[in-house]
């Protein structure tokens, strides 16, 4: 696949991917953007391994999800509140973070697997089957994660 072709495909998906990552990082725009860029470069380097019949978006999301997990493992996001505050962008992005504070706080209470399943389902609009492919879980596990995540979110929203 040529670079132009790849860019055209990514161009269609990048906003949805970045939105998902932003929610996954609970509003930490810097981390989300960093993961998004890294994932897209990784996807570009591994483009030969992309099977044409597979859905490009699902494949890209899978790479991004794994990149997010790598970041988590490397402790990239283990910052203190003060560090996070220092890196908080100003301007419209800061307003954004404030605007969606309720959502970020609510999803922040969920375990990683439930959070990912919920966000892929509600933010990115993926089906259970696609979520299973992205997260590498079984469809049954995804259904359970969604169910548990929904009840936890309902509890939080009813408070």
């Amino acid at each position: 696949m040529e670079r132009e072709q790849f860019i055209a495909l990514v161009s269609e998906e990048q906003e949805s991917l970045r939105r998902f990552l932003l929610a996954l990082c609970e509003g930490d725009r810097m981390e989300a953007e960093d993961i998004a860029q890294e994932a897209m470069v990784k996807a570009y380097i591994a483009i030969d391994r992309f099977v044409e019949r597979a859905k490009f978006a699902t494949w890209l999301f899978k790479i991004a999800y794994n990149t997010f997990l790598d970041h988590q493992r490397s402790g990239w996001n283990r910052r203190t509140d003060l560090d996070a505050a220092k890196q908080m962008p100003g301007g419209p992005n800061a307003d954004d973070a404030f605007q969606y504070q309720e959502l970020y706080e609510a999803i922040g209470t969920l375990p990683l697997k439930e959070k990912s399943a919920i966000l892929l389902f509600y933010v990115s609009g993926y089906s259970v089957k696609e979520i299973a492919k992205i997260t590498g879980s079984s469809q049954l596990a995804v259904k359970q994660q969604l169910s548990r995540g929904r009840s936890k979110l309902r509890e939080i929203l009813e408070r």
Partner: protein
Amino acid sequence: MKKKTTIEDLFAQYQPDMGDRNEYMEKLSKKLAAAEYAKQYREAQTRRYRRMMVAVFISGIVTGALGMVLVLLHPQWLLPTGISIEPPAISPLFTKVILLLIICFMSVCITGLVRKISDRSEVRVR
């Protein structure tokens, strides 16, 4: 009275500003160009290394084989002068020399083969 927020409401309202699309794609394009350059450089290096290993392996076999042929054709070259050997009788010294050469030849071949295999597995890991 405050209206209850449902999960669907919570996510339906989620439309954060992701900035200018063209600007983002332009930045990404530059990053991809840099990544491609790095990828090509690494691939070229791997190809060079692989070619070198193949050359070492082949030259090991060729020189080993040539050495053996020469020794078999002219055993007297390796023996001290003044010693005559009858064609059917093989001297112990000659046997030792041949054995030594075979060992050298085998070690060169095995070294080449092992390096080639390790090179291949390294490429696969990458």
